[in-house]
C-alpha cells in the first residue's frame, strides 16, 4: 500500500544510516500485522491512517529507535567538563602571566594598566569561548565516531559481510576522510599560492604577546614545500581511494610509506639550521614541526602495528 511505504520511507530518512533498512523492514512488518488484525484483509485508507497515527509521526517513531541522540555522549560529560576547566585555568594563567610581565617590564600609566586589566578579562573570556567551542566540536566528532564503531559491531553485521569485516581492521569513516581531504587541499592551496602566509602567522603569534625564538626562512621553506606538497597530494589520492574501496592491504602499505616519507621531511625540517633565521630558542615553527614529527612517529607505529596484526599475522578483527 502506497501510504505505508511513504510512511516507512519518511521514518527511514530520520533513522541512523547503518540500521535503517533493518528497522524499516521490521516496522513495515509490524504495521501490516496491526492493520491485518484490526481491520481485516481489505482495510480502507481511513483504517490504515488511523493505525499510522497510533504509531506516531515519523520523527517520533525514529526517535524511539535512536539510542542516544545527545550530540555529546553522556559517557564523555565528565571528561568534557574536566578538560574545559583545564582550558579555562591554563588560559587564565597564560594571560595573567603575560599581563604581569607587561606590567613589570613597562612603565605604564594607570589608565593603560586599567585598559590592560579589562583586556586581560576579555582575552580570557574570548579565548576560553573559542577553545571550548573547538573542544565541543571535537567531542561531537568523538561521539559520532564512537557511535559508528558501536553500530559497526552491533548492527552492521551480516553473514555476507563477514569476510569484509575480517579483512578491514579499521572501518573507513567517510566524514573523517572527507574532512581530511578538505583540509589537506585547503592547506596545500594556501601554502602553494602564498608561502608567505607562514611569516604572517609568525607576526600573528608575536602580536598576541608571544616572543618567538626564531623566524622561518621563507625561501628555504619553499624548497621544503615542494616535498610537503608531494606528500599531501599522495595523501589526498590515498584518501580518495580509501573512500572508494575501503581499507585494503595495499592501501595501508602505501599509507605507511607516505607517512615514512612525511616523517623524513619533517625530520629534515626540524633539524635544518638554514630554515630558521635569528635563532635564539625553540619557540616558534620549529617547535610545531617537532611536535608534528612526534605525532607522525606515533601514527607510523600504530599503522605498522595494524598492518602487521591484520595483514601479516592475519588476526581476525
Amino acid at each position: 500500500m502506497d501510504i505505508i511505504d511513504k510512511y516507512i520511507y519518511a521514518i527511514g530518512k530520520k533513522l541512523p544510516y547503518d540500521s535503517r533498512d533493518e528497522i524499516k523492514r521490521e516496522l513495515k512488518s509490524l504495521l501490516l500485522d496491526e492493520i491485518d488484525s484490526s481491520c481485516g484483509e481489505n482495510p480502507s485508507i481511513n483504517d490504515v491512517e488511523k493505525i499510522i497515527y497510533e504509531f506516531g509521526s515519523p520523527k517520533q517513531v525514529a526517535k524511539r529507535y535512536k539510542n542516544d541522540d545527545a550530540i555529546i555522549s553522556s559517557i564523555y560529560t565528565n571528561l568534557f567538563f574536566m578538560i574545559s576547566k583545564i582550558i579555562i585555568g591554563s588560559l587564565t594563567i597564560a594571560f595573567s602571566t603575560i599581563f604581569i610581565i607587561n606590567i613589570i617590564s613597562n612603565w605604564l600609566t594607570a589608565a593603560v594598566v586599567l585598559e590592560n586589566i579589562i583586556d586581560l578579562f576579555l582575552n580570557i573570556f574570548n579565548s576560553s569561548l573559542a577553545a571550548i567551542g573547538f573542544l565541543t566540536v571535537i567531542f561531537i566528532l568523538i561521539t559520532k565516531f564512537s557511535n559508528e564503531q558501536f553500530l559497526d559491531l552491533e548492527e552492521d553485521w551480516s553473514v555476507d559481510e563477514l569476510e569484509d569485516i575480517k579483512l578491514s581492521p579499521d572501518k573507513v569513516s567517510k566524514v573523517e576522510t572527507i574532512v581530511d581531504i578538505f583540509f589537506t587541499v585547503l592547506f596545500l592551496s594556501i601554502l602553494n599560492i602564498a608561502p608567505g602566509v607562514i611569516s604572517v602567522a609568525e607576526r600573528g603569534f608575536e602580536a598576541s604577546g608571544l616572543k618567538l625564538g626564531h623566524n622561518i626562512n621563507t625561501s628555504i621553506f619553499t624548497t621544503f614545500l615542494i616535498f610537503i606538497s608531494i606528500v599531501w597530494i599522495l595523501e589526498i589520492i590515498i584518501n580518495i581511494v580509501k573512500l572508494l574501496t575501503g581499507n585494503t592491504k595495499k592501501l595501508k602499505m602505501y599509507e605507511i610509506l607516505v607517512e615514512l616519507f612525511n616523517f623524513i621531511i619533517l625530520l629534515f625540517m626540524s633539524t635544518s639550521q638554514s630554515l630558521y633565521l635569528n635563532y635564539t630558542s625553540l619557540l616558534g615553527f620549529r617547535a610545531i614541526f617537532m611536535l608534528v614529527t612526534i605525532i607522525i612517529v606515533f601514527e607510523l607505529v600504530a599503522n605498522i602495528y595494524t598492518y602487521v596484526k591484520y595483514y601479516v599475522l592475519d588476526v581476525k578483527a
Partner: protein
Amino acid sequence: MSDIKNILDNLNGELKRGTLVMIVLLNTKNQIYGYSLVQTLQTAGIKIDKNTLYPLLRRLEKQELLVSIWDTSENRARKYYQISELGEEVLAQLTQEWSQLNNNISKML
C-alpha cells in the same frame, strides 16, 4: 486531586518501566514476533504501549539478551525474537532479585 493522579501516573510508569525487561524476557522463551507479544501481554493483563515495546525488543537484541530471526516462509516476513543464553542467565538473576525485593517490601506492608 489531579496532582495525586499525576504523581501516581508517573510513579506507576516508573514501576512498570523497571519490570518491563523482565516481563519481555519471561515471555520470549519461545520464538515470538512483536505484534503477537503485545497480544500475549495484553491477555496476561499487562498493558504495554506497542510504541515502547517494539524499540525495546530491538534494544534487548543489541544487548544480546534476545536473538532474532526473520521468518520469510509465510507470505509476509516477520521478525521473531527469542531469549538468548545470556538473556536466560540475566533473567534468572533478575527474577531472584525480584523475589527478594518482593519479600522485603511485603514485610514492610
